[in-house]
């Protein structure tokens, strides 16, 4: 067997195997951990092995002798039936209706529409897929590793009688396989199946804790994603109707761009992507999903599953270059970027900040996709990669923090440095990597801005949004360091697996940032063909094009130097006399206490600004939903 085929099979099937092992043998902690670790290791190794082999196409006609298409047909129906079952179980009419609709459409598609033998070249792996595979396999596995101690703690904390961890890891691993499948297959029906699978996994994991609120939010995620699923299948039908093909690469034939139905198909697929990426007005499922254990949020709701949305958009982008649809996707994305950032400013719940920030960044990726120039596509892909890594790390840190201080509120993390210095520092560096040059996220944002400068709507929204972004991140970083003990370093205890997850992610994302030029040259530039021509040149340690330049390496060197100097200076500061902060001369000697009226000691405290009156959820949500809805209508309507 071809090594590429083998790796593909491993990447998709190994997690499934691991998952099944988990549920069968996983009641013991050691075995469970071993299975998870082993699966993760296999995934990481195979993903890395896959790297030099791309791009390739493979045909996949049968699996274990059975016609693959048949398997998928059956699996698809089964999956929809499961969803239908959950709909009935929870008496959720929307879910039932949507699942039934999808079932009907699937049967219509498979049974009536698709005629004749299908082409079997179903696997397509280019650099974009590879990037996704790497993210899923490496970041995903790391997250699963951290989930081991996390879930142990979690169940301990909630006094769970019978451990439900086997089920948890079953779903987690299942999900990894599904994701790999989604990005490796080119056949729309296959993609649809995996798409639905991630929906189901997400539903199961959000509802994992079985509290009322968890169940409710899980159902919300389910029905919303079912809307996406329905749009997906409708899109497939329309696309097939128009092009007579189910292969994604096949249907992207630019000469069809003038056709209304064709654009509608793409718009519907985009709609599915928007739902998956929780763009406005579908953001509420992602926020609700934050009730899930934090590794779930890290895995599904920030670094992998939601990325499916932008992945699909990136795939579809060549199909709609130069159309109004493209423009509207750009505006829609920029709007999401702005709205997500604004809403994040109003949040004090750390995970919600992360969630909104995710939505916001995905919005930026959509905006870049919509701009649909070489530069913007590069920006989109870079952002996709960097965001996945850094966000995963931030989520994991918040998970660790949350378990330690039993709160996920930013206000409660005030002075965290005094309690868990290392985690606090890692979180702060995560924040820095999100907003500061020369790190990758900002690099891609810079590219995005320069690419967007031509489009006034987009650039204005992006400019406002990025300023808002700075606010909520800087605020958080500062809060973590706001330490009344003035910087005494205490040792901190965390499970080894937590360090094993946080450390590599932190160092990895820094290195990845430094390696951004090579990332670009190796992974992205090869894809810049067709409508896109390679845009940036690697010059003087930076990326440069006709109208802009970003000196990554020199800046990295200078930044490192600066860091060293500051660290040396820090040593001096550690020796300096430490005094109480300014409290109008009333400090009493205890940290942040002052002597107030009636000779009492009062704690001076300053809370962060969340600007609820301007950016509060209650105030903005309706408006942004309205805005998102209008734009969405425009997209769908404009396609026609």
């Amino acid at each position, binding site marked *: 067997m071809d090594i590429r085929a083998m790796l593909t099979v491993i990447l998709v099937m190994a997690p499934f195997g691991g998952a099944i092992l988990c549920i069968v043998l996983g009641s013991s902690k050691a075995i469970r951990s071993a299975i998870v670790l082993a699966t993760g290791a296999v995934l990481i190794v195979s993903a890395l092995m896959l790297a030099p082999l791309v791009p390739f196409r493979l045909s996949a006609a049968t699996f274990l002798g059975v016609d693959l298409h048949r398997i998928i047909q059956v699996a698809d129906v089964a999956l929809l039936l499961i969803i239908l079952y959950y709909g009935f179980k929870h008496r959720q009419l929307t879910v039932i209706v949507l699942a039934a609709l999808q079932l009907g459409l699937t049967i219509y598609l498979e049974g009536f529409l698709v005629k004749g033998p299908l082409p079997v070249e179903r696997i397509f792996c280019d650099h974009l897929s590879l990037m996704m595979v790497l993210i899923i396999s490496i970041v995903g596995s790391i997250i699963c590793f951290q989930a081991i101690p996390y879930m142990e703690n979690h169940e301990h904390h909630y006094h769970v009688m019978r451990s439900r961890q086997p089920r948890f890891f079953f779903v987690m691993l299942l999900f990894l396989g599904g994701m790999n499948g989604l990005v490796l297959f080119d056949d729309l029906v296959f993609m649809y199946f995996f798409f639905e699978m991630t929906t189901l996994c997400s539903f199961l994991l959000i509802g994992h804790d079985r509290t009322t609120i968890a169940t409710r939010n899980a159902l919300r995620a389910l029905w919303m994603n079912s809307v996406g699923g329905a749009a997906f299948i409708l899109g497939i039908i329309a696309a097939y109707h128009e092009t007579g093909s189910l292969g994604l690469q096949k249907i992207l034939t630019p000469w069809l761009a003038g056709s209304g139905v064709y654009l509608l198909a793409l718009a519907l697929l985009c709609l599915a992507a928007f739902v998956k990426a929780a763009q406005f007005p579908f953001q509420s499922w992602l926020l609700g999903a934050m009730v899930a254990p934090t590794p779930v949020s890290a895995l599904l709701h920030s670094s992998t599953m939601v990325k499916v949305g932008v992945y699909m958009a990136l795939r579809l982008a060549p199909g709609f270059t130069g159309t109004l649809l493209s423009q509207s996707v750009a505006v829609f994305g920029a709007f999401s970027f702005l709205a997500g950032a604004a809403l994040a400013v109003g949040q004090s719940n750390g995970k919600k900040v992360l969630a909104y920030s995710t939505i916001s960044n995905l919005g930026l990726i959509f905006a870049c996709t919509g701009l649909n120039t070489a530069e913007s596509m590069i920006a989109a892909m870079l952002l996709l990669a960097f965001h996945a890594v850094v966000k995963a790390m931030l989520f994991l840190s918040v998970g660790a923090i949350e378990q330690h201080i039993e709160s996920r509120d930013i206000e409660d993390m005030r002075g965290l440095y005094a309690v868990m210095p290392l985690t606090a520092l890692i979180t702060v560096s995560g924040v820095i990597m999100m907003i500061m040059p020369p790190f990758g996220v900002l690099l891609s944002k810079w590219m995005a801005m320069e690419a967007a400068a031509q489009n006034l709507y987009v650039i204005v929204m992006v400019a406002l949004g990025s300023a808002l972004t700075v606010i909520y991140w800087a605020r958080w970083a500062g809060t973590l360091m706001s330490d009344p003990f003035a910087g005494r370093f205490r040792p901190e205890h965390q499970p080894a697996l937590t360090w094993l997850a946080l450390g590599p992610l932190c160092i990895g994302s820094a290195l990845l940032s430094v390696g951004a030029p090579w990332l670009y040259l190796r992974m992205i530039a090869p894809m810049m063909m067709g409508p896109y021509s390679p845009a940036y040149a690697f010059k003087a340690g930076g990326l440069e094009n006709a109208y802009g330049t970003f000196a990554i390496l020199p800046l990295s060197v200078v930044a490192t130097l600066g860091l060293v100097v500051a660290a040396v200076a820090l040593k001096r500061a550690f020796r300096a006399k430490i*005094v*109480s902060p*300014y409290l*109008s*001369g*009333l*400090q009493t000697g205890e940290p942040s206490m002052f*002597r107030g009226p009636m000779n009492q000691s009062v704690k001076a405290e300053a809370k962060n600004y969340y600007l609820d009156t301007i950016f509060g959820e209650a105030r903005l949500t309706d408006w942004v939903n309205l805005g998102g809805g209008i734009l969405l209508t425009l997209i769908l309507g404009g396609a026609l």
Partner: protein
Amino acid sequence: MQGIKRFINQLRAKSPWLLHFDCGSCNGCDIEILACLTPVYDVERFGIIHVGNPFHADLLLTSGTVNHRNKKVLANLYSQMPSPKIVVAIGACGLSGGIFREAYNVVGGIDKVIPVDVYVPGCPPKPEAIIDGVVLGLGKLQAPQERNGERKEA
């Protein structure tokens, strides 16, 4: 090295930033201190800025009597000033408690709480006198080793 030190000490006297703390004064002294900052006296000519924050100040100008409540504040502020620092007590009250010496809530002059380098008598002292006092204090800032406070702290 010596030259640099001397140079820096000279600059110290050229850029005295002052913190004014009204330590239970009747305002007479306060407004005269404020008047020093205003156009007619304009102590910014000497580089003096009223910083209003002990962390930034070189010179602590205090007026008024120390009482039991504000003595803690006074000590706190003094401790938050980075050395070298100079304390100038303004007015009869700041020097000794002035006319209120015998009142029950009066501890006495500033030097009951923190070391004072310059005493500016008057009730209130004229702005000119305050400027004189500050200048006298600047002399001490230039030669910090001779300072009263330093001796105490060492």
